[in-house]
């Protein structure tokens, strides 16, 4: 079944990776130009801080959003062949992982530009794996729910926008307690903070952050699998 994922992924490759990369890079450049001297002035190596936030959020956003539509898009396959339908969602995740790898390479370049040793990147894959598990769980939930509620795609799109502003991606907290309290329940915050601490600032984060991220990943995976298994039976007839 893993092979079929790769074949499904083929669809996107014709567009070329360039287009996928353009979006986060342009966003990065614009935000950097606007905020470097204002919001980012108090943050050490703001460029890297910003880029890390953008690429991680981008991965989560694209994967989860694509998964909401993925099962509807493959209606004809589901209606005619019996196979592990999870592989459709896995293929979405794999495709986005490949794109993310390109973003990571760019990030490493930017690190060198900032005269920082890219050694911290060695730990990034570890965090990223946990992040993938988390994203996969969320995608499973969204994909199965979309079969029953067709407007999940629109709602999620909207929620992601809110999340984009609520998560400290292009700004730091700077003593805003309300925002900090909100972000304590924002899963993305932990993942982004963890990778920034380790990769950019080379500091050991408090151990509870690590446990929280792993816990979040496992919880999301568990809920994802339970929801998916419960709803999967009726997928074919809902299409």
């Amino acid at each position, binding site marked *: 079944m893993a092979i079929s994922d790769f074949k499904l992924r*083929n669809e996107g490759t014709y567009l070329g990776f360039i287009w996928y990369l353009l979006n986060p890079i342009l966003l990065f450049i614009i935000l950097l130009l606007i905020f470097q001297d204002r919001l980012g002035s108090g943050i050490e190596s703001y460029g890297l801080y910003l880029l890390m936030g953008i690429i991680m959020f981008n991965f989560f956003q694209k994967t989860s959003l694509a998964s909401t539509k993925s099962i509807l898009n493959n209606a004809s396959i589901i209606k005619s*062949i019996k196979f592990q339908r999870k592989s459709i969602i896995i293929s979405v995740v794999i495709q986005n992982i490949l794109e993310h790898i390109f973003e990571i390479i760019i990030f490493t370049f930017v690190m060198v530009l900032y005269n920082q040793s890219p050694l911290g990147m060695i730990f990034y894959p570890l965090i990223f794996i946990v992040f993938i598990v988390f994203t996969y769980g969320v995608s499973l939930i969204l994909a199965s729910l979309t079969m029953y509620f067709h407007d999940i795609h629109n709602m999620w799109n909207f929620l992601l926008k809110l999340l984009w502003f609520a998560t400290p991606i292009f700004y730091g907290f700077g003593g805003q307690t309300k925002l900090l309290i909100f972000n304590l329940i924002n899963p993305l915050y932990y993942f982004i903070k963890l990778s920034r601490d380790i990769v950019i600032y080379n500091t050991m984060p408090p151990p509870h952050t690590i446990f929280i991220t792993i816990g979040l990943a496992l919880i999301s995976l568990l809920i994802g699998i339970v929801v998916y298994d419960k709803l999967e039976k009726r997928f074919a007839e809902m299409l």
Partner: protein
Amino acid sequence: MINNLIVENVSKRFIVGSRSEKSVLSKLHFFIFRREKKRYFWVLKNISFSVKPGEMIGIIGKNGSGKSTLIRTIAGIYSQDKGTIKVNGNIACLAGHNNGFKNRLTMKDNIHLVCSLYGLNPKDIGRYFTSIVEFSELRGYENTKLYKFSTGMMTRLSFSIMLHSIKKINPKVLLLDEVFSAGDLQFKLKCLDIIKQLLKKNVSILIVSHHLKTISYHCSRAILMDKGEIIKNDKTKKVLDWYLKKEKLTIDGKRIKK
């Protein structure tokens, strides 16, 4: 002899008629005001039959009598609400002519995609690839995107892919849903030859078709369905005669004049 397929009391229902189907807001509205009741439509009602090895069974009936649903339920694409389906081995299914193809991909990619969904590994696909193209008579179109294909070409391709995947899957039961509706006569005969070989290897075949002649020539038994129930399950000739008499038709599709 052990039966290849046993279907026992299978029932299947679809939910129909509620306007508040597909969005969160309308479901919420439905939940609060509850104006409509959920209506169920039983597509299959207490279907039971069994299939012996090497037997070819034709399923006939009007549109909406539940033939395709039955095939999909047996294939495991739909899940039944009641009853059990026992299969003694693997199952292969070909439903319709658009067999999970992606119109925006080339034929080559589609072959790879569908074959891997059938559970073939890349090595097998590479081995069968030329033979699949050869059999479907689509040589030279390997890099053409599928939306440029005609329905007949798609039918040939999907049939060819399935026949080749069968070599790997080794199914005991083969389900065919309206597969000959768009292919030409020569291709149909070629497929029927292969089907006969499969029958000799003790594979059971279930075929849904509106083409009564095909069924009368090739099937040993026929099942007549109407409104989700099995009306007749007997020797092909008996079932067809009964059906044609009831509908006042001849096997060529003409009305009997009085």
